[in-house]
């Protein structure tokens, strides 16, 4: 163990699924250390287990065996409330499919992050939340679309709304699962510029991608293969 532990650390993590009575071992001993302020890209072929690994990093899933430390603290013993608390306050997610609520406006979708993400002694007031949401939306270039409904946006715009939602609460860790998968070069570059900018401000980033351009812009690049990282 190092004297300054990483923000997140996987130690010999395995994850097996049982489907139709057969056990499928997707992760077979993953070791990963991500320091604060790091920007790590993970690539791997389809079905390699990238999303599975990201779910574990985001405390949405538990390893079958092995250890996962968040902020230097083992997470195995944490209960639902504590895990949910870390997710809400410490982690921002960007999913491959955007997961926006179609009945709500862009602004309301972003504001949703504040409902469960409060850790302060004093909850943020509605106007504070609004200011943070509008700030996040302007950072992704969507300030003028905040009253629109997601159904009226392009794929790239929806992804940027999802990013605004992920960063508006100022999390410490951004987990992104193919954030540029649906975007053209120009949009994808804009999103990457934003991620780099946030990373420069101290946000720790783990991004899963098929895109070599994305992988090149990360500080480090790891490949998931045969259930292990190399």
């Amino acid at each position, binding site marked *: 163990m190092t004297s300054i532990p990483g923000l997140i650390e996987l130690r010999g993590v395995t994850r097996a699924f049982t489907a139709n009575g057969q056990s499928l071992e997707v992760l077979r001993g993953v070791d990963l250390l991500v320091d604060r302020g790091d920007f790590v890209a993970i690539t791997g072929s389809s079905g390699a287990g990238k999303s*599975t690994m990201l*779910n574990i990093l*985001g405390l*949405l*899933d538990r390893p079958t065996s092995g250890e996962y430390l*968040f*902020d*230097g*603290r083992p997470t195995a013993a944490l209960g*639902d*409330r*504590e895990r*949910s*608390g*870390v*997710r*809400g*306050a*410490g982690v921002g*997610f960007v*999913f491959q*499919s*955007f*997961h*926006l*609520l*179609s*009945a*709500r406006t862009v602004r*309301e979708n972003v504001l*949703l*992050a*504040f*409902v*469960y*993400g*409060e*850790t*302060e*002694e*004093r*909850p943020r007031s509605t106007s504070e939340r609004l200011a943070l949401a509008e700030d996040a939306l302007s950072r992704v270039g969507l300030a003028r679309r905040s009253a629109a409904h*997601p*159904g009226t946006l392009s794929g790239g715009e*929806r992804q940027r709304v999802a990013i605004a*939602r992920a960063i508006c609460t100022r999390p*410490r860790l951004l987990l992104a699962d193919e954030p540029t998968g649906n975007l053209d070069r120009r949009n994808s570059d804009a999103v990457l510029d934003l991620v780099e900018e946030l990373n420069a401000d101290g946000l720790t980033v783990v991004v899963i991608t098929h895109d070599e351009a994305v992988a090149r812009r990360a500080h480090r690049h790891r490949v998931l293969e045969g259930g292990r990282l190399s």
Partner: protein
Amino acid sequence: MTAVVKAVRRRGAAHLGVRTRLLRDIGGEALASVGARPGRLLLGVLGTLVGIGALVMTLGLGQTASGQLSSRFDAVAATHAEVEPATAEGSDGTARPVAAFPDDSLARVTGLAGVTAAALLAPVDLGGREITTVPVLDPARAPTTPPAVVAASGDLLTAVGGRLERGRMFDRGHDERHDRVAVLGAEAAERLGITSIDSRPTVFIGEHAYAVIGILASSETRRSLESAVILPLGTARAEFPGVTASTLALGIALGAGRLVAHQAPIALAPSAPEAFSVSAPGEPTTFQTGLQGDLDLIFLAIGVITLLAGAVGIATTTLSGIAERIGEIGLRRALGATRGQIAGQFLAESAAVGLLGGLMGSAAGVVVVVGVSVAQGWTPVLDLGLAFGAAAAGGVVGLLAGLVPSSRAAAIEPADALRTTAT
């Protein structure tokens, strides 16, 4: 220990600010979700609406109807009273009166303030004698139970709220002269085949003929008089042994009930007023209230059954809603929602649907009650507590209906939920 974990620790502590804000936010989320699906909302609301509506309608109509009954009953009770001797258990185990009405009972009570009329009533034991309209005894005729015979003196009509169909009531003269006259209750007259008194009909009690001078149509406080043969008390005492007054019926001025109840026993027995008890006239119309009760039960059952159907409706729409919204559940979990908060949101949603159904159903029920009352010329009687309670009951039904769906929603693993694609 680092900042995030510390922050999480703080979150666990009781911070009213964060908690109330969270509750408000989750409530807002629930309402927004309910409002976003009007079709589903309608489906969920409908069952509760009908169920609560039927319940409010039944209970409200029941209250209104019994209000009508009791207001009629109250009017009678407010102007009539009955005095009876207190009873004690005799050596043979039967209840016996502990006092007898003094001979001058009528004179004693008619002078009291608030008493408008008084009449003594005494059951007459015929000792096996028959009541017929012909004097000849026909041995081949099957024996029938004769109508009851009641002896009375005083102002009977006013004291029992009676109304004559024809003829007249016997008076003090008849009573004092022991005249053989009778007034027939309408039912008794019909049984005896007497429809008119123009032909001066007579009835025979045993071998003695009694001139029928009147027919009593009805009595507000003593229905039994309608099927009785009524004789003057003096006559009955002279003809039959052991005739003892059992009841003193009083007509009283409106509002004088309390005063009369206090003074009448003293007037009758100054040294032992407790020997007499005064009560409101008690021959309730059991048939009507019984019927009302049956109807109530049927509508109540209908209401409860529809309400159950409504609960099942809310539960199924919520359940299918969860299947549709699995991606949303995953998203909320990723944003930091605990299992409890997911459950809370779905509970709040189904409670809101139930409450809405309850409010609408309660309003509809009130409208029906008022409508029926207006059509019937009744005064609508409806407990406000019932109307609001019923609306709240809708919310409770929704809450209960949401128990299973919400625990299902809470049990969904976030990783599985997110695997299902959404918008």
